[in-house]
């Protein structure tokens, strides 16, 4: 039986992470959502390092990544993931407050699938994350094979 893909949320701001979690759930995303506070912890999980729990075999992953994180930032995470043969197919969706076009361009060129700017305007944040939830359910999750990491 096919396992549901796991969504990984890398976000240093707990408040942000909570808002995203709630909004995605309300949008109908029922998949498991794992939260990491910095890039280093995320990489330990993906590459099965350290003492914490590891990524399981036979489960697909979707990466929602903030760029500005302590210790190891989002850019470094993209670089390492894209260099790994097993991990390089994981869809990476950048969710960042940075709307610098040079940064956006840089992320796309490194291989991220989507770049979403976190809005702070009244009502927009929930709307954008809701759309992200729809995008995940309709476009991303159906395209994933169980065999993919």
């Amino acid at each position, binding site marked *: 039986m096919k396992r549901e893909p796991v969504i990984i949320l890398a976000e240093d701001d707990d408040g*942000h992470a909570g808002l995203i979690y709630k909004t995605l759930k309300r949008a109908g995303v029922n998949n498991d959502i794992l939260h990491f506070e910095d890039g280093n912890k995320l990489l330990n999980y993906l590459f099965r390092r350290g003492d914490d729990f590891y990524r399981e075999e036979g489960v697909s992953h979707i990466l929602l990544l903030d760029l500005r994180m302590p210790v190891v930032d989002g850019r470094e995470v993209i670089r390492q993931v894209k260099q790994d043969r097993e991990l390089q197919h994981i869809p990476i969706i950048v969710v960042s407050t940075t709307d610098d076009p040079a940064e956006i361009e840089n992320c796309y060129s490194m291989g991220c699938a989507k770049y979403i700017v976190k809005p702070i305007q009244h009502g927009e944040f929930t709307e954008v994350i809701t759309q992200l939830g729809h995008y995940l359910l309709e476009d991303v999750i159906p395209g994933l094979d169980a065999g993919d990491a």
Partner: protein
Amino acid sequence: MKPLRHYLPLAITFAIGILVSFILFAIVNKWENEKQRIEFESRAARYAHIVQHTIHDYVESLNYIGDFFNNSEQVTREEFSSFVLHAIARHPGIQAFSWNPLIRNSERAYYESLAREDGFENFMFTEHADDQKLVRAGQREEYVIVYYIEPLETNKPAFGYDIASNPIRLKAINKSFDTGNLSATERITLVQETEEQYGVLLLLPLYERKVSLKTTEDRRKHRKGFVVEVLHISDIMEDAMKHISNQRIDMYLYDLSADETNQFLFFRPSHTPGITTQPQKIDDIQKGLYWSTEFDLADRQWQLLFSPSSFYLKSRTSWQPWFVLTGSLLLTFMLASYISRTSKYTANVKKQLHKNKLILETTMEGFILVDTLGNIVDVNSSYCGMSGYTREELLKKNLREIDLLLSSEEVEHLIKKMVEQGRDHFETKHKCKNGSIIDLDVSVSIMKLEETHFVAAFIRNISDRKRIMREYELERKKAQQYLDTVETIIVSLDKEGAITMINRKGFELLGYKGDEMIGKNWFKIFLPQPEGLDHVYPYFKQLIAGKVKSKEYFENYIVLRDGTQRLIAWHNVLLRNEEGHIIGTLSSGDDITERRKAEEALMESEYRFRSVVESSPMGMHMYHLESENSLVFTGFNNAADQILGVDNSQFIGRTIEEAFPPLSATEIPERYRRAAGQGESWMADQISYEDEQISGAFQVHVFQTQPNKMVAMFLDITEKKKVENRLEESERRYRNITDHSSFGISTYDESGNCVVANKATADIIGATVEQVIAQNFYTIKSWQESGMLDSALDALESGRKIAKTFHVISSFGRDVWIDCTFVPYYEKRKKFLLVITEDVTRSKNAEEAQKQLTEELIIKNRELEQVLYVTSHDLRSPLVNVEGYSRELAHSLDELMSLIEHEPDLSGIKEKIEPLIKKDIPGSLHYIQASVLKMETLIKGILKLSRLGRSEQKIEQIDMNEMMTGIIDTHRFRLDKLNIKTEVSDLPECRGDSAQINQVFSNLLDNAIKYSDAERSGIIQISGHRDGNQSVYCVEDNGIGIAPEHQDRIFEIFQQLAPREIKGEGMGLTIAQRIIEKHHGRIWVESEPGKGSRFYVSLPGE
């Protein structure tokens, strides 16, 4: 008495006859000798002239070579060779030309090796050993070495020979060097000669160029060497004599300046067939017929002596005097016998004739009756009138006493006729009583009166006619003499120009037989046409007509039978008849074709000189110093006409002062006279001259050509001078500009010396013009330090203009910025560097300030960008939370409200409300409060940073040991709590704002504590040292360390390594860096993750 009277006439006849015979002999003999002497002397003089000219030509060729050396910087062996070989080829008497430099002993090795390099492997200096063998020359102070010699092949023994080693030559060398004149040696046997022959060296001393050579001292000081011409006396003489046909005259050449034993130079015997002639002693020669002349060769006096050979005398001896003597003696004897036979009859005849006296007295003809002994028996008055004697005087005389002046032939003829025919008719001379001689026509017959024979003579005076006859006779005699002269052509022409007579030499030369030519027209056949008929013949006709005076001497060409032409020198005489009318000409001619060729050859060198003169683009004026002060203009060339624009022939014959009056006031006439007289060359670069005809500026070069002759060569430099004036003017203008320019303008030569500099150049660097000009840019310190020197050398080397701005701290105390343009250029083949400077300190300072401002602005802008970025990201993040959780709060309240409204029983919904009130609502509130706090912290940080930028610094010397102790004390509580040890070594002082520096080190210590590794006991080490004028401090920890990729970003605003675990605003390092930058210091980090970090701070020490 009678016998005595009878024999007296006989005795008298004898006595007179013999005396007259001997006197005649003596006179004729003397006349003949005189004629021979004159002929010999003129011949000898002609030979002497040719010989002297030939020798002069040889001397001249050496002078040419001397000129070549004097006009050349250096003459190589090859140049020398090609220059002299031409002269050698044309002069068979030249054994060699050589260049003999004066070489000091110190230079000997150099010269020897140089010649070896030229390919003469065995070259060395040589001299004669005692046994006359050539050996290597011994050590002397000076040598005069035959260093170049041509032709080398025939002169090998001389090559390398030290001519100063020979006493004779050394004498000539020293004399020559001292006088500066050409000199000659006495006779020597040449080194290169194996036979016994005499040679002479001509030495022309050469000196260093362009030095004064006025005194003997000067000349000794500047000696350079000699060009030497080696002459073979005999070859020169043969060269000269080849033009002279053999005249059987012996020739001697003596050097009168030599010792008596060495005077003899040369003897050329006449080539007499079958006779070998030995030279005679000079005393012996002078006993006989001789002719001599003396002339100068360089500084020596030579003598040419000619003496006729015995054969010459023999061939020219005339037998006439002897003939006269014998003839007249014979006549004397015959007369004597005749007189003795006839005298006894004379008396009877007288008687007989007396009868006819009356008849005889009436006739105009003279009558004289003589007996067979010559006694006068009767005479008429006519005869008395003719002779001037009275009848009485005559009757006492014998015919012999009356001088009949009959020639011996006439006497013989008379006697013969008388015997054969008994009568005769002849002409004779008669000496009158008063001594005058009259010519007589005499008819003689024998008369027999009273058995006695008498001679009766009827006499007419024909003196007038005879005088004319005699003139004719004289000419005829002269003609005969010319005819006798074998070497001369004699030709006689009639009035029409037809040949009436020509001698053997004449027809043989022309290639005819004698009789073939008689009657032919001389001018038509034997002269070149058309001149013969067109010019010479009309002249001849005029001559014959007496309309022009005869030219005694002239030359023309004749045409031989084979068509060739010969040049003949003619002597002409007009022939007249007895009436005195011109009937033709008699001419004697010498074939001078060969002589002329010789003369022409001799003159060739003069022509050559002339052609040089004529073709020269330089104007030339020739002068002759006729007396001490009279320097006379004698010639000029075409260029002189062109340059001066006048006809220079107008000056000929005038003195220099007359010809060019303005020169009188100058030194020039004296210079010219010195050149002509003393051979002092002179040169003037610029002589301005102006008179009515000539105006301009000239460069003049004056030198002697022959003794007392000089030439002035000149070039027109008027245009050149104008150009120079214009240049000068523009130079002045240029100087005016540069002097007043605000730009520094200076020029340096290639070796760096300042040639010229204007005031601005000096002002810019705070110096005086004199100080600048004294500089050499290689040694100017400020040029080296500022880089000006490099640029200057670059410009000089590349030849390209270089413009740059330099910061110069001049040695005259000025600190300036200079805009500098280096312009290399050439002038007169030398490289110069033009340096144009402009003081741009003021604008440069403004520029620098601008630059600094810009740099600061860039930093500010970067900071601002960072702040903006942070604002857009970091300030946004909390806002998202505030916004998001406010909605969540509203959402929770909405839910609560609907529960309360729909469920009236609150207790029933307690379980539903509880999670909202206990969990969701406080959770949202937590995030909202935290975010607001976070924002406040960020805004505080930004304010702090902006305050830092605005605050004023109070810079002072800081005791870092004291400060560090204070900082550690304030962190004591946290250090102790985390059990971190500190180690502080002795720290150097630094300069800075103590509050800000305190902040920096507090932040660093704060970080070290904050990022300590919990798994090991922490140690923080603080150390410091001086590096130059900087104090460098290090804060080292053994904490968690920083990954390399993050080391750049740690100084950025709001960056934190672990925001969750470690509280802080994320601005500590940003602020530290900002402070250090403001102190013109530096802050950097070295770190390894997991081991620790070292933060370094560098600050000004004093």
